Structure formats: C-alpha cells, structure tokens
C-alpha cells in the first residue's frame, strides 16, 4: 500500500515538474517580446556561452573528426573506397556528433553555471528581492539565457562541424592506411553533405539550446535550502539536460525522417 502511494506521488511529481518546465518555457517565449529592451543581457549571455565553449569545442570536435576518420578510413581503404571518407566524416559531424557534442558541452559548462547562479540567487533571497522590485525573474534571468542558448548553440555547432571536418581531413591525410589528399577529402565532403543536412543539425541544436536553458534555469529557480542544495541542483540540471538531449535527439531524428528531411 505504502509502495503504491509512493509510486503515485512519483508520477504526480513527474507530471508536475513537466508542467512547470513547459510553463517556464511558455513564459520565456512570452517575454521574448521584450528582447530589444533586454538585448544587452542576451549579448552578455551569448558571450558567456562563447567564452566557456569555443576553445574546448574546438579541441573536442578536432579529435572527434579525427577519430571518425581513424575508425572508418582503414575499413573503407580495404574496399578501395577511402575517397568517401570526407562524406562520412562530414555527414556524421553535421547530423549527429556536432549538435550532440555541442549540446553536451554547453550543458556541462554553461548550463551548470546557469543553474549555480540562479540557485544561489534563490537560496540567498535575490529572486525574492527581484519580485519585490516588480522585476519578473523570468524576464530578467531566464529569457536572456533562453534566447542566447537558442542562437548560440547553432553557431557553436557550425563552428564545431567545420573544425571536426578539418580533424577528419588531417587524419585522412596523415594516416598511412588512408592517405588521401585534402582536395579529395573536401570534394567528396561537398558532394555528399547537402545544405539540408546542415539545417538538420541546426534544428537539433536549437531544440537542445531550449532544453538546456529551460531545464537549467528551472532547476535553479526551484532550489531551496543552502550551499549543499546548490551543488545538488547543478548535478541534477546537468544530468537531466544530458538525458533529455539524447532522448530528444532520437525523436527529432524520427520526426525529420518522417518529414523526409533527413
């Protein structure tokens, strides 16, 4: 009996959390109408995302591109079709690895900072202070992060895609088992990677941007207690973002295939 009650409470809690997250998303979209007045906050958040992710993003995408070439190149060379490596690395980066890795990077580096900052503001009554000053916390704190993530993530994905392509090209050229020229690599890449494939990745990136900003701000806003709870909230927000990124990655791909865009 007790177990059933606990299960029921968990289900209610899940629906309640989902509802509250969707409500926060709705409010953030509503406050986007004040973008012009709050543009400096949005730019600041975009700079924050850039500062935290561009160097690490370059590093990981270079190696992801490299490892893709390293794993698939020799196998292709066995069948004498190693010139197709450019297309394989290019498509893998733009459709899947670029958006997912960028989202995981942003969730880990920027999302965690968002949660920590907002959770700290909740715990130390700063959110209450905003309310008493008649400043809507969603407009002041969430909306700028929401817009910044929405647009910064696709930019980051394009940046990581390009560096990943170069990583693949370097390994394809340097590895004696593959050894194809940059020219051949990029000609094949440009033949196989279409604009719709890039767009595909950008759509995913935008959805991931929404997920990261809303989830991380939501967890931050719901934090109560003290410093220990701030740490717990950061972990919770990052883990929840990772899970939702991977689940939504699957479903966005399904929808894009269904619509004939993949």
């Amino acid at each position, binding site marked *: 009996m007790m177990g059933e009650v606990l299960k029921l409470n968990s289900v209610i809690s899940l629906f309640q959390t989902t509802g509250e997250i969707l409500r926060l998303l709705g409010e953030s979209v509503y406050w986007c109408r004040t973008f012009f007045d709050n543009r400096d906050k949005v730019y600041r958040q975009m700079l924050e995302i850039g500062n935290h992710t561009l160097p690490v993003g370059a590093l990981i995408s270079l190696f992801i591109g490299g490892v893709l070439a390293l794993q698939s190149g020799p196998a292709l060379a066995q069948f004498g079709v190693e010139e197709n490596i450019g297309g394989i690395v290019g498509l893998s980066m733009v459709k899947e690895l670029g958006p997912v890795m960028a989202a995981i990077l942003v969730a880990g580096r920027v999302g965690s900072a968002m949660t920590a900052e907002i959770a700290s*503001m909740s715990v130390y*009554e*700063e959110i*209450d*202070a905003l309310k008493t000053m*008649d400043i809507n916390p969603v407009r*002041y704190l969430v909306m700028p992060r929401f817009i910044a993530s929405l647009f910064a993530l696709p930019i980051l994905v394009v940046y990581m895609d390009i560096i990943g392509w170069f990583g693949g090209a370097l390994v394809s050229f340097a590895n004696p088992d593959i050894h194809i020229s940059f020219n051949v690599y990029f000609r094949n890449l440009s033949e196989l990677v279409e604009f719709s494939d890039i767009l595909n990745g950008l759509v995913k990136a935008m959805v991931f941007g929404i997920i990261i900003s809303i989830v991380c701000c939501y967890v931050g806003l719901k934090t109560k207690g003290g410093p220990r709870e701030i740490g717990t909230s950061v972990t919770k927000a990052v883990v929840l973002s990772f899970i939702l990124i991977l689940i939504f990655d699957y479903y966005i791909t399904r929808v894009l295939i269904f619509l004939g865009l993949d």
Partner: protein
Amino acid sequence: MTRKINMQKTVEANSKGDILHQYLEASAVGVRIIGLDKSFGENHVLKGIDLEIKPGETVVILGTSGAGKSVLLRHIVGLEKPDSGAILIDGANVLDPESEGRHRIAMVFQSSALFNSLSVGENIALYLREHRVFREEEKIRRIVGDSLSIVGLDDKGNIMPNELSGGMKRRVAIARALVMNPELILFDEPTSGLDPIMTRTIGEVILNLRKHVEVTQVVVTHDIDFAFYIADRVAVLSGGKIIEVGTPEQIRRSNDASVREFITPQFELKEGGKNHENRV
C-alpha cells in the same frame, strides 16, 4: 567613532539629496491585516493576525525567533499567500490581481539580498533601469549617489557586495529600497548579526528615511532596544498571534505575562560576573 562618522555623512546627505528629493514623491499608505492565517504543513505559523498600521507610521513587530514575523512580512509584500484572511493596502487587497503594482512596496531582507554579480551602484540603480524610470544615465547616477549618501556610504558605489561588511550591506539594501520611491518599506530583521554600534547606525538610517520620503515602515525584529528606539508603535507577536500593540512606553509597562517575559532581561548577572563558575 564609526557611528559619529556615519551620522555626520547622513546629516550632510540631507543637503545633498536634491535630485533624490525631487524624485521621492510617494505618499505613505495604510496597511490593514485581517484574520491572517498560514500553515506550512503541520506547522501553524500565523493564527488569525489582526493589525492596523496607519500611513506614515513606523510599526515594529517584535517577537521571538521562529514566531512568524518574517512570514508575516512576506505576506504583506505578496511573496506568500495566506490560507485565509486578507491584507489591505490603502483598502486594496494585495492578493487581488487588479491591485498588483498599484503600490510600491520595498523590502529590506535579513540577508540584504544584494545581487552579487552587480556592483553596489548597479544594485541600487537596478529598479530605475529595469523600469525605465529615467532615460538619462546621469540622473540615475546622481540618484544612486544621493541614496548612498543618505545611508552614509558615499564612495562605495563601484565596489562589489562581497567587499562590504554586514552592516554596510544592510545600508545598501536600504538605499536600494529607497530608490523604489516606496510608499511602504518592510525591514526583515535589519540588525540581526550586527554589533551594537552598527545596530544604532541602522536605527538612525531608518529614522532618517522619513525625513526624505513620506513612507510607512514595518520592521520585524527581536532586538528590544532597537525596537523601542525606532518604533512609533510596537506589536508583540507570540504563538502566531499579536498579543499586544502599543507605543514603546505602553509595551514597557505592559502587564501581559508573555510580553513581560519577552521584554525583561533573561539573565541576572551575579556580583563579580562569576556566572560561569559552576560550569566545567
């Protein structure tokens, strides 16, 4: 010495604060609390609170820690919703969506609640900037400067909150509340954790505010001397109920056992100060 310096700055500020005085044009509001009831789970915190505060009055709500003073204050500012009862500000129920934003109510939090990512000046200017009160940045800067003068912190505008002492943070929080041009200011334990000299300074600042703005003030504290120093009237909260309301003199002479227990010193010092000799 510190107090003298601070008070001197405060007095000087009276002549400095021209632009702030032009801006501060609010008129004080009356507050009426009717049958306010609030529970958190099993914990029945407020049990039918009734209290009337006249416009322009400074009322101190005095009570022990955990008596529900802060919860009462949070209800007045609209941060908590009561289980039953009402709070009327100039006759309008604070819970009524139509009365939202009708009155400017500022609150000085126990933790000061300064925004740590903003400088002191930016903290104070936040309300003015977010509500586009002035377009000219110069005017905002002057108002921030004037309000800092009033609380005796003229040159602290550019430093970050984490570089301030507890007493300074409270004074910045008061300056931030002042630039809201408030009709009602609520102070949540403004002296908790402060030394007696700083407590006196905060008391002076609160008393001094009424020279600059026509405002109603509600202060919650458990500091009896501080309460009697600043209050026009004192309301004693005990067991979730207001048990007595009166002027500081009336409260001092109260015959109510709970009031007497609270306002009478709990420790009787032995001769020679050897209260500790039985320990160890």
